[in-house]
């Protein structure tokens, strides 16, 4: 088992004919993901290395049975593309695009929530990898192998860093989910924590947060009430000054809110072990898994 993406994923890529879209779609296919179609308005009927391209998501779903979408279009077209994918009946939408206007994200989030048909992961995220099964996004799969650690993270490269230390210790991952660094992520920590709790393959969960917002604090509450599996957390940005956006649009300490220290404290108060460095997180995870074995 794993969560969100696996052998049954049938992926349709919005923006498959763009340079990055093509590169990563084919990389995902090489990994073993079923990349069944792509969407680029006006390029219907073409193909990208054998993957058929359609003008609309509706055509792509009707003709290829796609159940998952990956959004690779530029920011100004991204909200529209997500809403189109949802309207066409796609169940899981993974938005890689970085730089979508915050108000667009707000509208999309609320529309999807109201309809209750599709789950959005991202935007501004590296995607989802279930090692050995499917890769949807830009995560460098070579560094990860199948295993029992679920990872959910606001940061891409930080996930690679932690996953790599775990892999060096001989541990693998059930699924790695990048929820993205934007202010309004389609899925939050708690959404993914809930899925990992239900996933039999996942025995330990690593959550990787950063400054800004209160998603980590809410995750702490959720873990205390709903998660029985061990959770190890990392928070980036202890040295970030207030008022400065640290690379991610969502990573900003506003006034006294959103600091790394407050998040770490909230998590520890709810029994979540917080590693002070990525290496320490991996070490704690290894010690917990070792103890469980």
């Amino acid at each position, binding site marked *: 088992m794993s969560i969100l993406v696996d052998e049954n994923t049938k992926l349709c890529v919005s923006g498959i004919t763009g340079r990055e879209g093509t590169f990563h779609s084919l990389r995902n296919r090489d990994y073993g993901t079923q990349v069944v179609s792509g969407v680029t308005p006006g390029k219907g009927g073409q193909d990208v290395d054998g993957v058929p391209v359609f003008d609309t998501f509706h055509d792509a779903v009707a003709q290829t049975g796609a159940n998952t979408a990956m959004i690779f279009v530029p*920011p*100004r077209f991204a909200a529209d593309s997500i809403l189109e994918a949802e309207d066409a009946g796609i169940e899981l939408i993974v938005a890689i695009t970085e*730089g*979508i*206007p*915050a*108000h*667009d994200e*707000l*509208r999309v*989030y*609320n*529309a999807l*929530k*109201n309809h209750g048909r599709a789950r959005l992961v991202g935007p501004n995220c*590296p995607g989802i990898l279930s090692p050995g099964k499917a890769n949807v996004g*830009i*995560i*460098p799969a*070579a*560094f990860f192998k199948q295993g029992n650690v679920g990872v959910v*993270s*606001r*940061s*891409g*490269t*930080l*996930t*690679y*860093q932690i996953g*790599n230390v775990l892999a060096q210790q001989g541990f693998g991952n059930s699924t790695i989910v990048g929820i993205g*660094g934007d*202010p*309004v992520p389609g899925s939050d920590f708690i959404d993914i924590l809930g899925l990992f709790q239900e996933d039999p393959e996942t025995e330990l969960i690593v959550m*990787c947060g*950063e*400054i800004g*917002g*209160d998603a980590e604090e809410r995750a702490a509450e959720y873990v205390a009430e709903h998660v029985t599996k061990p959770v190890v957390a*990392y928070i*980036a*940005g*202890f*040295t*970030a*000054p207030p008022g*400065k*956006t*640290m*690379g*991610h*649009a*969502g*990573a900003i300490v506003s*006034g006294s809110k959103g600091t*790394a220290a407050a998040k770490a404290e909230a998590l520890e108060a709810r029994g979540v072990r917080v590693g*002070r*460095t*990525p*290496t320490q997180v991996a070490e704690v995870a290894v010690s917990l898994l070792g103890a469980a074995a």
Partner: protein
Amino acid sequence: MDLLEYQGKQLFARHGVPVPSGKPARSVDDAVAAADEIGYPCVVKAQVQIGGRGKAGGIKVAHNQDEARQHAEAILGMDIRGLTVHELWIEGASDIAAEYYASVIFDRSAKAPLVMLSTKGGMDIEQVADEDPDAIARLHVDPLVGFQDFHGRRLAFEAGVDGDVVRPVGAMLAKLYDAFIAEDATLVEVNPMIITPDRDVKALDAKVTLDDNAMYRHPDNAELRDLSAEDPQERMAKERGLTYVKLDGDIGILGNGAGLVMSTLDVVAQAGGQPANFLDAGGGSKAEAITSAVEVILSNDKVKAVLFNIFGGITRGDEVAKGLIEAFDQIKPTVPFVVRLDGTNDEEGRRLLAEANLPNVVTEATMDGAAEKVVELAKAAA
């Protein structure tokens, strides 16, 4: 992007929000001319993006031309909590019967705009929130439905505004909400929002933050940037497409991916060092981008040592190595570099670096080891 008060008021005016008429000025003569045109009494206001301008002496009423000149001379160039005043805003003085507070905030936690109204205007709203939270009426608006008249009524009644201004205050909130949506703002705040003796509602201040990601929809707003408030190194980085935040320390940091860079700053701090900057070279950086980034880092002359922390996904270790080699060729840095390369093409990158045999470049195998090494080198150079 944060707007200056007058830029916010000009934005408000475009959405029908009543504001006192005024003019910006960058020199004493311009300020006096503006004051003459507006008429006396008028207010001379320092334009800096920080609260507490009044207390610092940055807001003064002028009753005649001499006073306008005196105030403009005193305020231009003044330092207000670390910011130098480069611009003034001269506006007609307003008569005030009551001071309220109004704002629309992008509430990322509730995933909806939050509209707030209070009759306790003209003071620090965070203090009001701490001491008397019930004095602030709050309401979330469904962004798919938008601000309705009833939202305005509920807020006005709950905040306890004077009965005769319930409707105009509600109308004001609707206009502020319009501006918030139409301009892709993440914050619109009016403190104070005043009621005049004639029972008109006016925005006496304006605090507006715009979403940088939406600037392509608002080319006019993109030109409003307060360049004088931007750090020259941050501006240089922005022009090169790099995400750079200047910090106070002496260890230059370069990494790929915002999370990893933030984490690198933390690990350096834990090792006893002080980062000089945050620099995310981004995913898929080519050699030129790395060279360019090294230039930005070294343009801060406080930097005594530099740490490269790369975990390559899309970014390739060999490209990073090539960029660094090129930077040494072009810039000939004298400070030591510590390089940690992992991920895609890491072996190739390390091989290139070893072959180039750059002076002052040390490679480390782990992030923690690299952080300790760079701290040691920076201390030795201090």
